[in-house]
């Protein structure tokens, strides 16, 4: 049990995919213009990550190691398409905002990183704990980025006016704002944990 809690917390902070491992950045920068986008994107990724990890962990003794990557890719692509279809059917406005970044979950490094690096060697409960931790770690991270950009860019929090029109810095809504906010937040996380990330997990 202690092990499961540790696996779960690992993704939330110590190896947080966005701020500590710095992977899967594309969607973290692209869709983070409003709080609800961050939450929706995060939950979509958490779903794909958890389902894929469950299958990869269950099939870990069946899949021959030489074809494991193609197998993982098919599994991940299947769950990504399911999310894509269900979002299109039930949340069309959100689907329109997140656009191409929902199908792009299939190449999000976080998913393959956890499938290949953790779930393929772990028991089912541990794989689930890890996937949920990583998914929710990603979710809070990009929601934070979204909220910073939303407050500074349009003066609102989840669409509610909080700044009384004091901040309407358009640059925060544009690509440069995404990079700057991300850089500063990674810096702040480095200060909090007193251990700067020197390199990313991605190639």
């Amino acid at each position, binding site marked *: 049990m202690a092990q499961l809690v540790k696996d779960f917390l690992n993704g939330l902070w110590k190896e947080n995919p966005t701020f500590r491992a*710095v*992977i*899967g*950045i*594309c*969607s973290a*920068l*692209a869709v983070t213009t409003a709080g609800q986008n961050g939450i929706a994107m995060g939950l979509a990724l958490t779903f794909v990550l958890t389902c894929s990890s469950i299958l990869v962990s269950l099939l870990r003794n069946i899949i021959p190691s030489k074809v494991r*990557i*193609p197998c993982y*890719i*098919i599994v991940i*692509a*299947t769950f*990504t*398409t399911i999310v*894509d*279809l269900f979002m299109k059917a039930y949340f069309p406005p959100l689907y329109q905002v997140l656009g*191409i970044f929902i*199908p*792009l979950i*299939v*190449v*999000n*490094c976080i998913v*393959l990183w956890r499938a290949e690096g953790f779930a393929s060697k772990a028991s089912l409960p541990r794989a689930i704990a890890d996937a949920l931790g990583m998914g929710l770690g990603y979710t809070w991270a990009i929601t934070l980025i979204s909220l910073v950009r939303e407050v500074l860019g349009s003066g609102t929090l989840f669409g509610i006016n909080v700044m009384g029109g004091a901040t309407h810095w358009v*640059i925060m809504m*544009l*690509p*440069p*704002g*995404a*990079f*700057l906010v*991300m*850089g*500063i937040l*990674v*810096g*702040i996380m*480095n*200060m909090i944990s007193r251990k*700067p*990330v*020197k*390199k*990313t997990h*991605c*190639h």
Partner: protein
Amino acid sequence: MLKDLFFIIVSTVLVNNFVFSRFLGHCPFLGVSNKTETAVGMGMATTFVLTMTAVAAYFIQSFILEPFGLTPFLQIVSFILVIASLVQLVEMAVLKISPALYNAFGIYLPLITTNCIVMGVALLIPQKGYNLIESTIFGLGAGLGFTLALVLMSGIREELEFSDVPEALKGPAIVFITAGLLAMIFLGFTGLAPL
């Protein structure tokens, strides 16, 4: 006709640069932009794969997915599998044909499958309704834009090695801030080409 192709190139390389404005391909952008030499190699390899993917995506979309009505639920699976196999094929072919070329950029090939810029281009082509030539140019432009971003960044990072960066910002953090400044510069290209 030629004018349209020219605009596609200008648009993908400068105005809507895939790294700075479309937010695609950030993993290699952070990972292999330490040295200019590796950046050029990675850029070349990606451009090559992107151009081929664009052609492949066009054919799959218009001759298999669309005629049989499979787009909504098999597009993602088929594109990712085609990209993965294409990268493998290119790697084997390059190794066979020219070991020298393989040494120059072959080692980057396996990393390209999970580069979201490739999948992004494949998904954008049907959305934009491009024909075969336009698709090819779109893929090529995306690759050139990616190479440009990577080489610019690597040049700056080589200098950054010698500068006094605050402790907390060392590593990816300062790269993001630099990328933010570069993205501002690229905003200046807005309006250069009608989409």
